[in-house]
Every structure is written in structure tokens, then in C-alpha cells.
């Protein structure tokens, strides 16, 4: 493991992604990627009395599914990295309080999944852990309540707003295995271009995504065509277009192999989510469900997964603060 360039860590013994799991909510179950998910819920409460409890149950059951799928016992997992969007990350800490695994609670807003993969890889590569579990969750209803307006108010959503994905994505990293492998991680910087609209996260996060993307190419000496797919976490339709344009003006054409998880998870015409999906689980479920399977089937061989996060809270937006963005990337190859 060594640092190359300004912000990138190269793993000399690439870290194996042993297995993944994901559970999604009802709207995601109607989307184009439904067949790749482990479990599709019909009810956003999943039998619980509150959305927060439902979200905790989703992350807990997804972790259990991932452990069961990877055929290792729970006590073989050395560390857990988890985070979500709710205040003080209660979905993760409440959902995983019975997991009995050393626990790091992390917050990177919607970039949490890749932040976890990045940190987990460092732990595995540095020989302090054999297995690390990285997980994240989000829930449309609990996120709307916290960041925008309670659903009881029946507010209309503006066209630039995105739909928080209900679900959880989990990946188990291990020292050895037959891939796919995490070979590099580029750790993002906080970038704030002064966007203040909490209903236009894509525009707020796109400059951060650009910064990490350009730095990744510079640090590794690669260019966009090296990858079969470059995927951002949740820029949505608005942010995706902005990133394509910004990259173009910086001399990188990513148009042909770039997509955004928020664009992929919902059908634009039939599901009317406005600007696409968002939330920690957006990148988490699309990777754990779709991308991981594509890598295992070798339909993708080289993927740059870059989760984007908006580092604001409801107080900061009520006080008129701008939204700082961040993007963390991992390069995954098989």
C-alpha cells in the first residue's frame, strides 16, 4: 500500500470483495435493476411502526444476508464500517447494535458506501483485518422528514429534486479471493461551489465529483477509456449532465462509459422521480446488486466507483449556508 500522487492510495495486494448484498424498498423494486437485488420489499415500513425502525431493520437484514452469502461466520469479521443519513447515524448504530463486531460509525453523507470501502481496504491491506464489512442505508421517508419536509405535509417536489433510495448495500472485503479487487482509492476533498438549494444536490456535488475524477486520472496516469464503466453515486440527471460538461471542458471525454447510479436505479419515464435517485443506498444498492454481478460475470472488468455526498444538515440549509460536496472513488478490477 502506498500513496501515489496527491490523493490516491494504491493497494499492492488488491483487496478482494468477497460478497455483497442489498435489500431495496418498493419503488426500487419497480425499477429497471430490480432483478439484481437480493430482496425487494413491498412495504416501506417492513412491519415496523416507524420509518427509522424500518431503515434499521433493512441494514441489519442486509448485513445478515451478506454474511450468509459469503459463507463465513460472524466472528470472522474483524471490523464494521457503517453510516447513513439520519442524525447521529442511528440507522446503522441501532440496526447493528446486536452485530457484535467492532464498529466504526462513519459519515460521508451519500458518499458513505465508498468511504467505507476505502477505509475497509486500508484495514485489510495493512494486515490488521482478515474480513471487513462495509455497509450503508437510506430511506426515502426518513430522509424527507429530516432534510426537507415531513411527508404528512404533502409537499410538492421540485423538478430538480432527487428521490432518496430506500434500501441498504453491504460489501464484505477480504484479504484473498478471486475478485473483483479494489486496486486504488482516491480520497475526495471537500468542494463547495456555493450552491444553496437542498433540492438541487446534483449541481452541488458535481464539482466535487469532477475534482476527484481529475485527481484520480492525474494520480494514476489513467484516462477515461481505461475503465469499462465510470459510475458516480447520486448526481442524478442534472448533476450527470453537469459532470459530463465539466469533464469535457477539462479535456476528458467520459460520455461513452459514464453513468450515474441515481440515473440507473429508476425508470425516468414510468417512475417520475424528477432528477433520479439519491441517498447512501443509491450507490450502495446499485453496486452491491448490479455492478458487483457484472464484475463477477466479467461483463465489466474495470470500474471506477465514485460516490458523491452533500455534507449539509437541515440546520445549515435553514440558515442559508451553501452545500459542501465530496466524492470518494475506488477502482475495482477483475
Amino acid at each position, binding site marked *: 500500500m502506498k500513496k501515489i500522487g496527491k490523493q490516491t492510495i494504491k493497494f499492492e495486494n488488491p483487496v478482494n470483495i468477497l460478497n455483497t448484498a442489498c435489500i431495496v424498498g*418498493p419503488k426500487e423494486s419497480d425499477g429497471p435493476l430490480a432483478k439484481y437485488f437480493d430482496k425487494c420489499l413491498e412495504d416501506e415500513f417492513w412491519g415496523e411502526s416507524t420509518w427509522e425502525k424500518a431503515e434499521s431493520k433493512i441494514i441489519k437484514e442486509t448485513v445478515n444476508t451478506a454474511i450468509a452469502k459469503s459463507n463465513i461466520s460472524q466472528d470472522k469479521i474483524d471490523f464494521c464500517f457503517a453510516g447513513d443519513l439520519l442524525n447521529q447515524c442511528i440507522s446503522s448504530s441501532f440496526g447493528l447494535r446486536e452485530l457484535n463486531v467492532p464498529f466504526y460509525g462513519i459519515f460521508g453523507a451519500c458518499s458513505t458506501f465508498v468511504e467505507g470501502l476505502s477505509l475497509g481496504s486500508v484495514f485489510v491491506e495493512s494486515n490488521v483485518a482478515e474480513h471487513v464489512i462495509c455497509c450503508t442505508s437510506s430511506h426515502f421517508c426518513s430522509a424527507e422528514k429530516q432534510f426537507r419536509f415531513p411527508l404528512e*405535509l404533502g409537499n410538492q417536489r421540485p423538478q430538480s429534486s432527487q428521490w432518496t433510495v*430506500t434500501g441498504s448495500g453491504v460489501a464484505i472485503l477480504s484479504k484473498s479471493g478471486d475478485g473483483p479487487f479494489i486496486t486504488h482509492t482516491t480520497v475526495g476533498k471537500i468542494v463547495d461551489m456555493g450552491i444553496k438549494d437542498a433540492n438541487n444536490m446534483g449541481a452541488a456535488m458535481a464539482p466535487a465529483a469532477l475534482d476527484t475524477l481529475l485527481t484520480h486520472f492525474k494520480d494514476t496516469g489513467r484516462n477515461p477509456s481505461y475503465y469499462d464503466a465510470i459510475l458516480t453515486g447520486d448526481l442524478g440527471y442534472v448533476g450527470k449532465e453537469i459532470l459530463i460538461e465539466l469533464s469535457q471542458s477539462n479535456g476528458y471525454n467520459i460520455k461513452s462509459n459514464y453513468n450515474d447510479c441515481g440515473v440507473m436505479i429508476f425508470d425516468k419515464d414510468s417512475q417520475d*422521480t424528477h432528477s433520479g435517485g439519491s441517498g447512501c443506498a443509491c450507490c450502495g444498492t446499485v453496486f452491491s446488486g448490479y455492478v458487483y454481478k457484472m464484475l463477477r460475470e466479467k461483463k465489466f472488468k474495470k470500474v471506477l466507483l465514485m460516490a458523491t455526498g452533500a455534507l449539509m444538515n437541515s440546520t445549515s440549509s435553514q440558515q442559508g449556508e451553501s452545500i459542501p460536496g465530496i466524492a470518494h472513488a475506488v477502482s475495482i478490477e477483475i
Partner: protein
Amino acid sequence: MDFWQNINWFLMLKCFIVGGLICIIGQILIDKTKLTPARILVAFVTIGAILGGLGIYQKLIDFAGCGATVPLTGFGNALAKGAIEEVGKSGILGAFIGGTKAASGGIAAAIFFGYIASLVSKPKMKKQ
């Protein structure tokens, strides 16, 4: 039969158009500006109170009836009108008493029915 014959269809039409126009203004503000719904609601109440205080809103009510009183601007108008009337009766203190007094029926009904609704219904994920 008397009921149907006594309906003023022309007033109904005016009511529908004026009420609709006020709501269209709200919709345009939601779609085309960055104003949050909460701010738009407060603005509607304030505008209603100002127009009511100046006596302009009453003309709209005379013209369109419920088309002008039911939207939130009508609530603002009721606040202003109540305050002005109460000042006439009990002096300057009326400016603080009159508004809520005039609107008390609406406020209490909103709280009461809101509570009833919260007992019988459960919020769900929106379809879009």
C-alpha cells in the same frame, strides 16, 4: 328544488376562477422560484393581511365570495379585518386581540380536524 334554483351560478364561476387564479400564483411560485412552500404560505397570509388592511381584499370577496376567503390570503384578510374591528371596540389593545379572535374558528377547526386525521390515517410514501 328551491336549493338548485337559488344557486347563483355566475357567482360560482367567479368563485372558481378567482380561487383558481390565487392557487395558480402559488403553483408558479413553487415551480419557478426557489421559495420554500413554508415561505410561500407566509407570504400569502401577509399579502392577504396587507390587502385586507387597505380595504382592497374586501372588494375581491364581494366579487368572488369563497373564491377569495378560502385560500390563505383570505386568512390574512380575516386577521387584519378582525384587528381593525377590535381596535374600534376596545382601543389599541384590540390590534393584538382582534386578529386571532376573528380567525379563532379556523384555527381551532384546523387543530381539531388535524388531530382527528392523525388518529385515523398513517403517512405513506408518495407515489411520485
